[in-house]
């Protein structure tokens, strides 16, 4: 083998060695890049997933609070209006009682009948009727022919009457205040149906 041939062989050995080394390093760099990309991708996915659940919780908490505060405002407003209606109704009832209107007289008569039904009985000697002072004469005229002994007592009320037996074991509540309180749950619904349709409430 001539010296030129040997030199060429040496060059060839080194050319191949350099090529191989370069390939090895290039592949390593590509692998390193893949490893880093994969890690970044996993981080992004994990962040996105925990971010999404954080967002859902945050949304539920903040909007839930706003909705419940909003509902509270609507309930308060409706309640104020309903109370205004009751206050106005009470004024009207007071006026009915004071004027002894026909509607009021009928109410008083029916209340008296119901009181007698409820309180009187074979073991009851006397029925005590409690009423507003201004109604006592009117009630007295209504009980003239009552089948049981009756006693009238003055009481502080807008109108109507309460009644009991002498021992206080049977009691009938028929004053305007009692009737109003007893009817309030049903009346609230009726008032709401009358007032809050069509106001976007």
């Amino acid at each position: 083998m001539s010296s030129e041939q040997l030199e060429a062989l040496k060059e060839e050995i080194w050319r191949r060695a350099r090529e191989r080394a370069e390939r090895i390093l290039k592949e390593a760099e590509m692998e390193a890049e893949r490893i880093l990309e994969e890690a970044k991708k996993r981080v992004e996915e994990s962040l996105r997933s925990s971010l999404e659940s954080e967002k859902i919780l945050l949304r539920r908490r903040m909007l839930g609070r706003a909705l419940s505060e909003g509902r509270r405002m609507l309930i308060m407003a409706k309640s104020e209006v309903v109370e205004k209606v009751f206050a106005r109704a009470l004024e009207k009832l007071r006026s009915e009682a004071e004027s002894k209107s026909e509607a009021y007289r009928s109410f008083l008569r029916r209340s008296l009948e119901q009181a007698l039904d409820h309180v009187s009985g074979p073991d009851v000697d006397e029925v005590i009727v409690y009423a507003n002072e201004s109604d006592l004469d009117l009630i007295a005229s209504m009980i003239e022919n009552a089948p049981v002994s009756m006693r009238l007592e003055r009481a502080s009320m807008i109108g109507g009457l309460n009644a009991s037996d002498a021992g206080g074991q049977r009691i009938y509540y028929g004053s305007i205040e009692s009737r109003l309180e007893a009817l309030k749950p049903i009346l609230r619904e009726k008032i709401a149906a009358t007032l809050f349709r069509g106001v976007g409430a």
Partner: protein
Amino acid sequence: MSIASILLEEKKAMMYVEEARKRAQEIIQRARAEAERILRGSSDTEAMRMELRRYEESLKEEAERILSEHRARAERIRAIPEELIEKAADLVVREVLGS
């Protein structure tokens, strides 16, 4: 130059390749270490906090919209005309007096 010198060159070339292989290993190990570091630091990043803060701001606006809608509805309820209040009060009177 002889065959012996060629063998020597061949050995040097192999060592050169071997050296490249070692460097390649180091490159990959560094990448794995960096990947580990990236994965460990992923739980609570500034980017996530920023994104959540931005989202919270948009939710505040949405919550305020909900509140002002409800506030407006509450005002409409309070502004119910007097004649309707009168009508409802008359209904109460009728129910109480049973007429």
